[in-house]
């Protein structure tokens, strides 16, 4: 059996462009997702029922439906809806759809991560802060969230890795991230074995690098567990 290294080597620039886009998409999605997640986590732990329900609805919907369906909703269904609303043809590029869909999705998972982090802080912390005259917001900002963030780092690392892999799904809307690059090259060269092996290894290299980085961060924060 022959393994055509040249197929991989000849297409390295294309593959690397895919790696770059995959990585950028993931960073942006998890970045925006962190902000969305923080907002929904705060709503979820608030004592105002309508906010709690809204947050629950958002989180349940995005965690309970396939990402592939969400991507299709954003890229195909939403433009049609907006077009009818505005009465004229509206579209947006696949890149925008991908960022929106991935951010909304990771926002839901990150909201649950932060909620877990916030709820793992013992009740006495909030009470001590409030007993000193701090408002709920001040207590959250200065006392609860800094501790909750620290505890959220390992699961956030996992979410980053999950998002990196799941971002391969945006290849269905023809965005040239790593998976799409693989499909294009495989189609052109008729060498799926070499191409998809290379794609898999590139994903693996990325996820391994990230998990190394996360455990390094954990160790650093673990050592000086209290420092700011």
């Amino acid at each position, binding site marked *: 059996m022959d393994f055509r290294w040249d197929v991989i080597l000849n297409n390295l620039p294309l593959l690397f462009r895919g790696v770059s886009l995959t990585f950028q998409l993931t960073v942006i999605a998890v970045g925006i997702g962190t902000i969305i997640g923080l907002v929904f986590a705060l709503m979820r732990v608030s004592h105002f029922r309508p906010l709690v329900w809204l947050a629950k609805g958002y989180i349940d919907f995005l965690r309970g439906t396939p990402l592939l369906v969400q991507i299709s909703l954003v890229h195909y269904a939403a433009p049609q809806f907006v077009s009818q609303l505005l009465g004229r043809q509206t579209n947006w590029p696949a890149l925008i759809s991908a960022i929106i869909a991935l951010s909304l999705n990771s926002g839901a998972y990150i909201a649950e991560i932060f909620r877990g982090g916030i709820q793992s802080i013992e009740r006495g912390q909030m*009470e*001590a802060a*409030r007993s*000193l*005259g701090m408002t709920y917001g*001040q207590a959250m900002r200065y006392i609860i969230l800094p501790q909750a963030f620290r505890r959220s780092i390992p699961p956030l690392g996992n979410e980053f890795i999950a998002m990196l892999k799941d971002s391969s799904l945006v290849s269905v809307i023809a965005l040239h991230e790593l998976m799409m690059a693989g499909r294009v090259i495989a189609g052109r060269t008729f060498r799926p074995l070499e191409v998809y092996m290379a794609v898999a290894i590139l994903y693996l290299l990325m996820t391994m690098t990230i998990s190394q980085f996360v455990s390094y961060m954990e160790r650093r924060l673990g050592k000086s567990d*209290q*420092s*700011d």
Partner: protein
Amino acid sequence: MIRVTNLKKNFGRLEVLRGISCQVEEQEVVVVIGPSGSGKSTFLRCLNQLEAATEGQIYINGVNITDPRTNINKVREEVGMVFQRFNLFPHKTALQNVALAPIKVKKIPPPQAEEMAMKLLTRVGLEDKAHQYPDKLSGGQQQRVAIARALAMHPKIMLFDEPTSSLDPEMVGEVLEVIRDLAREGMTMVVVTHEMGFAREVGDRVLFMDEGLIVEEGPPQELFSSPKNKRTQAFLSKIL
């Protein structure tokens, strides 16, 4: 200074406080004793509205704190609280623990707040631990930082909920010493404690609580040596 009238507190169907009325005068030290589950902590936590009262009124310096229109954060600045489990902020140093609320709540400039925090830590004998994190401190040291933290807001009233109950015996003394000093300086205090010797020594008045009611009250000598109520007698005979 504190006036409580017919205070009731329910947790769901459980009636924990069933009509408490009492008064605490300025500079008075009131000690609250009673069996476990009698509602001592709940009573104390109602006094700064960590628990909302179900019924009844609580006036602090003439302000009705059970009125929903009262700015409870302002009231809490005047009422310091010390917890059984310290509840120091683990991500802040001792000094930061003490200086944080003055900086964020009272908007005191950080250098000034830290200077004051340092003075307070010195006062509780912990100036050399100012830059340590709570998990590097012993229980007794943590509780002294917690007292300094509460004092940093310059409260007019201090509430203590079993401040020595989670301490190893050899550390109880150092914490009681700090509270004793406060009493001597004339701080108004409500102290829940199982330390009867301490209650006798610093208490101006003792309240005995059982099943959500103040069953008996009086000066410590009287209440400890000749309790009138049967339940007080039973309780005291068990612990003295």
